[in-house]
């Protein structure tokens, strides 16, 4: 093992979050999150509703301020400048500059509805980076091509399906040539038949070496694409590691019960009467390779 080289950008992971804490008027949502993401890694964040996954992502690109801990992205301390041990808040301009290198994809797409697909993608490169229009347009068209929407440059978001909108949103984030992409449940607002097209784009992005933090409930995506899975609950990281071992062989009770619930949600167990629920869950485990217990002899992956 080579000795770590602390305090230099070269030795630091692309994202280095230490003891991140966040409360919303007294409600402690993040209780000291530690997370390192190396360049080119894909991290999937899993966890039950309300566990703080969205909040953590929003803290990374400063849509929320943090109360405690530190977040570095590519060696830059987010939101503050450390001058001889004293933290000074960054002004809005400096914060905007830090956000430029971090792409974010939202659950509800948040495309600009008054702009066409192409204009959505060109907006930030022109307005933020001051690129010239022709150049930005050229790259926007390439990006549309990359997400499979080369025939929709002048469609307004309202004229696109959810899956198409989300692909435009990914292209829009990529147009800023970010070092890091954050995805907050990018497919959970989509009809089931549209999920695949968005995941395919993300998979390709991961293969091209993009560093990504993905909050998702898509277990197969996590298992196949993630380099590491992080399971959060109640504002802490409960378990993390290799996706196959965490998903197929969870160590903690909370992870186990979450994964079991995930599996049953696939079969809309919430609409099943309480008395039948266990039976349905048991059935589910025969149909899927996610075990209810620690190990499953059939597992051959």
């Amino acid at each position, binding site marked *: 093992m080579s000795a770590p080289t602390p305090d230099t950008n070269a030795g630091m992971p692309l994202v280095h979050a230490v003891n991140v804490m966040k409360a919303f008027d007294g409600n402690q949502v993040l209780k000291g999150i530690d997370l390192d993401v190396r360049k080119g890694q894909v991290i999937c964040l899993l966890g039950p509703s309300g566990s703080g996954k969205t909040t953590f992502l929003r803290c990374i690109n400063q849509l929320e301020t943090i109360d405690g801990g530190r977040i570095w992205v590519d060696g830059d301390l987010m939101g503050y400048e450390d001058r001889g041990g004293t933290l000074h808040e960054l002004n*809005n301009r400096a914060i*905007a500059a830090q956000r430029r290198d971090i792409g974010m994809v939202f659950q509800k797409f*948040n*495309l*600009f509805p008054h702009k066409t697909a192409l204009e959505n993608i060109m907006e930030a490169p022109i307005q933020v980076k001051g690129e010239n229009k022709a150049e930005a347009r050229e790259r926007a068209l390439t990006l549309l091509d990359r997400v499979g929407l080369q025939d929709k440059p002048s469609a*307004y978001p*309202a*004229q696109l399906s959810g899956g198409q909108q989300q692909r435009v949103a990914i292209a*829009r984030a990529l147009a800023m040539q970010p070092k890091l992409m954050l995805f907050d449940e990018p497919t959970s607002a989509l009809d089931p038949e549209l999920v695949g097209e968005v995941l395919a784009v993300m998979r390709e992005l991961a293969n091209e070496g993009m560093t990504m933090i993905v909050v998702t409930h898509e277990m197969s995506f996590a298992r196949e694409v993630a380099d590491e899975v992080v399971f959060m609950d109640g504002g802490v990281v409960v378990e993390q590691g290799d996706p196959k071992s965490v998903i197929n062989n969870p160590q903690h009770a909370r992870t186990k019960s979450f994964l079991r619930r995930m599996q049953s949600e696939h079969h809309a167990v919430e609409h099943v009467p309480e008395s039948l629920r266990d039976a349905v869950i048991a059935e589910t485990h025969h149909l899927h390779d996610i075990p209810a217990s620690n190990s499953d002899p059939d597992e051959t992956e």
Partner: protein
Amino acid sequence: MSLTPSTDRPGLIEARPVRHPGRWVAIAVIAVLTAMLANLIFTNGAFNWPFVFQAMVQSPVLHGLYIGTLLTTALSMIVGVSGGVLMAVMRLSPNPVLSGVAWTFTWFFRGIPRLVLLTTMGALGVLFKKGLDLGIPFDWKIMELLGMDGTLRFASLNANELFAGLFGAVLGLGLSEAAYMAEIARAGILSVDKGQAEAAQALGMNSGKTMLRIVLPQAMRVIVPPTGNEAIAMVKDTSLLIALPLIDELFFQLSSIGSRTYKVFPSFVAATIWYLLVTSVLMVGQFYLERHFGRGFGQKAPKNKRFARSAGMGGA
């Protein structure tokens, strides 16, 4: 597939439409009322139609229409809309000084009736009896501190003429309008989903650009329809300008023709027709503005060339 009706399957529908006897009664009543009104308008000599049309095109009347009604409305709405949007943005700012200033502004100008505001505005000259000078504030004090004589002023204006003229009219009506527009613009800004500003910020846009390029254009969809009402109200409120007193104004000119010629009623009819014509033109303008800012929102999107082409390509 065949269009020939077969005996066993029902064919084309040829049903008797539902009768609407109520409609026929209403049409009859309205027809009678309309006939009565037409009879009144065309046979009652008090209307004096030849005089009405003559009065409408008198040159002082046309001058009053251009200056007092159209120009003042346009300038006051420009002051009102830009001031109102500025006040709304300030009001929503996290900076307590800015939002306090905006609140106070709205409180002050919304609370004063326009007639009272214009009358007071016309009398503001009394504050600046020696004229209104443009220059560096407290220049006499600065020069005194520097141990020099003289002042730092570039121009001197007659305050009486200033406030009782077009400037006073636009200032008074514009600021009053800004107070109303501030509330309209604030509602518009708040109607835009918070995710829009977040998406812009996540792309690294600063808050000014986020507001100008992302939030305000979407807020316009909510802001434009009530602004059309405001513009129409403004046209009508220019008839208050005599309070300044600004005499280059449509209603004042027509009513003075009325009192000079003892044909008061036809003069008022002439004014009525002018106001209706102007407000009708504004309504057409509002239609096009609403269509412009409806871009990308459902069927309201304009069918411009780019849009038509994409729809063709996408087969949508």
